[in-house]
């Protein structure tokens, strides 16, 4: 447990000290979002219709763009070897690093999302459901992404490759995330979709650390 909190604390501290690095997902999210009213026109009907989808797609991209710093720095400076020798199984180390990553990417997007939803002319009710769906969905983005990030350690041009590897796996999250909000807004009740999101989260929590840890062990060779 001590090692777990040490890794979590260290990753948070490193991100916060690197300044703008830690705000990168949020900055990307906000700036890209403000482009949409400029691109498709400011009419409320259009923005209302596309708003939820736009926020979800941008959340996927924002999390994905920040994945490269999950393991890459540790692999380059040799910290990964030290982590492999720690008293803690590599699977739990992955989990600690994912938690730190999510707190500074996914969770921040969840907190910012209601405000940005209002910016896209969504109702307050929609904004609430959207934030809840993001709360269930963004940890999965980090967890699935950790497998891709671990596999691509040392790959040059990792950014493009990680999109190829990870974005297709994000599709279920996008589909259920958007349809949960839309069903809720139309009065159909989105609880089925939210339950599926929750189930995906549990499955990712159980499986992704093992896959990522296996990839990390290969990268140490």
């Amino acid at each position, binding site marked *: 447990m001590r*090692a777990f909190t040490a890794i979590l604390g260290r990753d948070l501290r*490193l991100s916060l000290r690197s300044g703008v690095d830690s705000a990168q997902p949020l900055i990307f999210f906000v700036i890209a979002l403000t482009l949409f009213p400029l691109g498709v026109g400011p009419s409320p009907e259009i923005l209302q219709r596309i708003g939820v989808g736009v926020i979800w797609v941008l959340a996927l991209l924002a999390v994905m763009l920040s994945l490269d710093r999950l393991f890459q720095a540790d692999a380059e*400076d*040799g910290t990964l*070897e*030290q982590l*492999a020798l*720690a*008293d803690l199984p590599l699977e739990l180390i992955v989990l600690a690093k994912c938690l730190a990553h999510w707190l500074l990417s996914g969770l921040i997007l969840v907190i910012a999302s209601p405000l940005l939803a209002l910016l896209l002319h969504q109702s307050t009710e929609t904004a609430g459901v959207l934030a809840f769906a993001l709360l269930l969905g963004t940890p999965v983005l980090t967890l699935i992404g950790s497998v891709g990030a671990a596999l691509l350690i040392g790959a040059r041009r990792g950014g493009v490759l990680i999109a190829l590897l990870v974005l297709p796996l994000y599709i279920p999250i996008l589909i259920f995330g958007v349809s949960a909000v839309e069903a809720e807004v139309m009065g159909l009740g989105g609880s089925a979709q939210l339950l599926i999101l929750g189930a995906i989260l549990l499955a990712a929590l159980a499986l992704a650390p093992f896959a990522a840890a296996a990839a990390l062990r290969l990268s140490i060779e």
Partner: protein
Amino acid sequence: MFEAHNLACVRGGRSVFSGISFSLEPGDVLSLQGPNGSGKSTLIRVLAGFLTPVLGEIRWDDIDIRSSLPEHRARLHYVGHLDGIKSLLSVKENLAFTCALNGAANGALDRALEVFDLEGLIDTPGRFLSSGQRRRLSLARLVAGERPIWLLDEPGVGLDAASRQRLEQAIVEHRQAGGITVVATHGDVAVKQAAVLELSG
């Protein structure tokens, strides 16, 4: 007892070494020697369990490490070419992180700072350290958490004479406490009564 039996390793289709055998009792030091590219670093990584040998086996107390890899990794310290120092963390924070990872007892941090003369640098961020200071910080990990096996890959690189002596003294204390040390060196770190394994490449 730490034993290797008939180890062979292939990297990139090329045989790096073969037929390596040794047996180390508590308190023993094995010095790996040989020219550049003779496989010293690779052997050390094999002993750490990072690489799997194509042939042969490594045993600790008669148990093959492949069947107990997590336990094996938790009983060794490895200091390699990459120092694992975070430039944004201070010396003390870097070392405290290692202590937490190793499950080190209280006081290990202060002792590690003392053994490698880092007390004056505790608040210095990693990015302001000289290469010798970085090397001392990565060596200080050895003392931050007691583990029976030390695997050192050219630990003397970049160290001044006084620091080398500190390292040699640390190795002596480690072997007096019953620890095993395997050190790859070009002769800059002198350890008395060390077994020598010559790798020819």
